[in-house]
């Protein structure tokens, strides 16, 4: 699903690489937590998967494709198979819940009939049935994140990237979001999630990859957030 082969990423005008000779493999169907302090390289890792950045050295494989050989015009096709969720939700404030989710399908040219069929389905999966016509500012933070997850999942991606999805939410709401991501994972989607939330990681007992200063320093199946701290 994802393979990093001694990947180094050095941003221009910086002396220390954001990732240095990082190697990692994530299998189909896994649920992986990416942990580590700010600046450890988590976001760079996710940006490389989305092909928003190219590695300085090494190879990144995603969904069986070597991203260094992927031509620019094929990037959209790759991203259609990857869902993305962010800490700040990134919803369109002037569109309703339904329209926000439908937007993701409209812009890849899906016909209206399909949109009208799959959007209610995915809203039901994330537990937002009945709130189709609400605007984002009428929703709680947890509900907004559910809209974002619905939008990321509506195209049934093989891979879901979540960059600190619970970073803006209170613990109770976070649990709900984690249950939802777990459910999506059980539906067959690989989930890679970066987080600072120790409680969640410790509860879920899934694979944990820890980054520090651009290096993979720990990789545990059924791991916890950190050692004694």
């Amino acid at each position: 699903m994802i393979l990093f082969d001694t990947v180094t990423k050095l941003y221009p005008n910086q002396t220390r690489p954001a990732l240095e000779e990082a190697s990692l493999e994530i299998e189909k169907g896994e649920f992986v937590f990416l942990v580590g302090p700010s600046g450890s390289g988590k976001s760079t890792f996710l940006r490389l998967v989305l092909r928003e950045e190219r590695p300085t050295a090494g190879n990144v494989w995603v969904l069986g494709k070597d991203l260094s050989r992927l031509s620019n015009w094929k990037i959209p096709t790759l991203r259609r198979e990857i869902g993305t969720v962010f800490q700040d939700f990134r919803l369109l404030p002037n569109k309703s819940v339904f329209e926000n989710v439908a937007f993701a399908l409209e812009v890849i040219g899906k016909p209206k009939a399909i949109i009208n069929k799959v959007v209610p389905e995915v809203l039901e999966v994330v537990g937002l049935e009945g709130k189709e016509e609400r605007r984002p500012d009428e929703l709680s933070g947890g509900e907004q994140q559910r809209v974002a997850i619905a939008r990321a999942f509506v195209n049934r991606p093989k891979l879901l990237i979540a960059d600190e999805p619970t970073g803006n939410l209170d613990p109770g709401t976070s649990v709900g979001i984690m249950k939802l991501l777990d459910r999506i994972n059980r539906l067959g989607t690989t989930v890679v999630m970066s987080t600072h939330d120790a409680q969640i990681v410790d509860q879920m007992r899934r694979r944990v990859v820890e980054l520090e200063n651009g290096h993979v320093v720990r990789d545990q199946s059924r791991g916890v957030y950190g050692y004694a701290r």
Partner: protein
Amino acid sequence: MRAQFVASEVGNGLRRNLTMTLAVIITVAVSLTLFGVSLLVRAQVDTMKDFWYDKVEVSIFLCAKGSDTPSCAGGAVTPAQRDQIKADLESLRPLVQDIYYESQGEAYARFQEQFANSPIADSVNESALPESFRVKLADPTQYDVVASAFSGRPGIEQVNDQRQVLDKFFRLLGGLQAIALIIAVVMLIVTVLLVVNTMRVAAFSRRRETGIMRLVGASNLYIQLPFLLEAAVSAGIGAILAVGGLILAKGIVIDQILAPSFQFTAFVGWDAVLGIAPILILVGIGLSGIAAFLTLRKYLRV
């Protein structure tokens, strides 16, 4: 590609950015109107050249009584001199196409006709007007051959090329055309800069949408097309206004004001306007489209 989605995005974009859209429309309209006028002036010069070069002739004025140029020192032209000049003109065929002799009597009659209703007509008598040969050249640019052969000869007062008078006028029109063209080019550069800036603002104000579009895998075409169409639509509206301005220039300034006052010459027809209109629309939409495309490539990268 869902046309309805793209169309509504274009409409939203134009409305949201109304002041910039209006600015683009106005600059496009003004610059293209000037551009069109300069093309129209050039067409006018061509029309007048066609019209006049057919009619211009070289006039060889012969000495009359009282002519004071040195070659007329011997008084009025003698019949022998006149016959010799005629024979020499005949020998210049085929460059010389037609030769027409105008006697003093004919010159006087024409003068009276031209200055009828004017007191000048009464102040001139027949013997003061020179007789002349009116020569039509096969190639009007070969005037020098005739001039060098005849000017300064005894019995000839002056050799006149009507084309030289016309050329001064054409140079004036050419100058006006150049000025209009320069202003048009400057305005077009301003237009391009304005389109670049408009696109930058539009891309920035919609970075949320475009960011999401990139993430969910919308193709570049889908992301950029609404912007490109916005640029093309506002430029197209400006170009249509410019065509309207050109139609007014032809219909009112030329047909209603200039043509009745200057009936002796030909003016450009509607075919010239018809030929210029598509050029204006293509230049407007093309320039703005290219400017938008190059800007977007920088601001809406994958």
